[in-house]
């Protein structure tokens, strides 16, 4: 229930809606999610919107999901290496597990994550889709 909180998600809209990370002003490393201390010890960052394009590093199929995602099952999740460097975990939509392979090019799409019951908030965010 904690993770479904509309307020918790609201705080993360820039990340979840627009893949907004940050870039170190000294060494240029891009972080997603945002960091406050770079590995070069710098604390100065600029917000940076990632392109949403990347490659599948690995993936799997979820058949038995947390209850709130049960209507979406089966669905695929993967680790995506984004073009700018960060590796992130995300859902891969519009494809079955048989249609994916490591190294496939993907791009971000904006999709529904889950709806909390019949009266709760609907959560949206970035997922990934194979470029065809």
């Amino acid at each position, binding site marked *: 229930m904690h993770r479904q909180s509309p307020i918790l998600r609201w705080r993360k809209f820039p990340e979840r809606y627009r893949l907004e990370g940050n870039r170190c002003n000294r060494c240029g490393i891009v972080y997603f999610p945002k960091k406050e201390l770079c590995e070069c010890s710098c604390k100065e960052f600029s917000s940076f919107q990632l392109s949403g394009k990347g490659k599948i590093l690995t993936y799997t199929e979820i058949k038995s999901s947390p209850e709130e995602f049960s209507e*979406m099952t089966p669905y695929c999740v993967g680790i995506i290496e984004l073009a700018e460097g960060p590796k992130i975990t995300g*859902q891969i939509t*519009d494809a079955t597990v048989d249609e994916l392979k490591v190294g496939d090019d993907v791009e971000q799409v*904006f999709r529904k994550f889950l*709806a909390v019951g019949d009266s709760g908030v609907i959560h*949206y965010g970035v997922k990934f889709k194979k470029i065809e």
Partner: protein
Amino acid sequence: MVKKLNIGIVGFGCYIPKFRIRTEDIAVANNQNVDLIKGALLINEKTVPNKDEDSISIAVEACKNALLRAKIASSRIKAIYMGSESHPYAVKASSAIVGEVLGVGNDFTAADVEFACKAGTAAIQMIAGQVEAEMIDYGLAIGSDTSQGAPGDALEYSAAAGGAAFIIGKNKVGKEESAANILYTLSRTTDTPDFWRRNNQQYPTHMGRFTGEEAYFKHIVSTSQAMLNETGLKIEDFDHVIFHQPNGKFPLKAAKVLGVTNEQLKYGIVVHDIGNTYSGSSLLGLVNVLENALPNQKILLTSYGSGSGSDCFVIETTNLITEKQKIGKNLLNYMQNKQYVNYNQYRQMVKMIH
């Protein structure tokens, strides 16, 4: 006399889901005659939204394509109106969510629009008014739907998902950026009980044959005629004509009444392989026309929304149309990238979509 406008379509884009279901698969599942259904509707297949798609996610993808073509920062958009009859929330603005996703910022006005299948063109008129009055520099109008049709009902063969988005700006001498100028718009509205959906009802109710002569044709034909009378233009002056397309047959019949040729309809009718995307229906036709038109061509667009009304537009492409056509994904890309689902998969996919 209808006023000549000084505004244009700076960016345009569309989105339709990847999945399709063939008309014959729906007919077989409902024990209905395949040839009879296909002959009556002239729809080969329709789009099916994935379980995680709704009118907001569809709108966002269409808007991204429109922004690419507009070549402006999203923060310059100062109004967003989204037309749909499948807004995911009864109370919570889809247009505000779209603005957040696009990174428009907070200095913009927004509202959700509903007028059955013409909510998208109503949104264009609302933006057009603000831009023409120079209240805003740019506005975003959207028509997007995941349409509903009860199992076994005639609507089940046509109710599809898709959307289109248009960024509208003022025409300025020396700073031309419009792919097409919106020259005129006018509307006709009546109280006609042809189609409706009550609160908390999953599927709409319609009056069968009454949705034809007294509803669709009366409004499409009379509003188009009113535009011709007001502007002094003749139907043969238009290179492209687009009507609302609830099925494949209605726009062809309306075209015949108005003397529109098949050549004029070539790019404007997209329903045969997409279905009726309600608020996105005539606007997907407009996007397809804009993606294929030559410079300095005239377009007549007449939408129809049950309940009832029509919005009519006279649009003329500019020399910039060719350059904008090369940017982003177009409707043909989306139409070609498709995957068929069977009837059982289809029912599972649309079950959780409002």
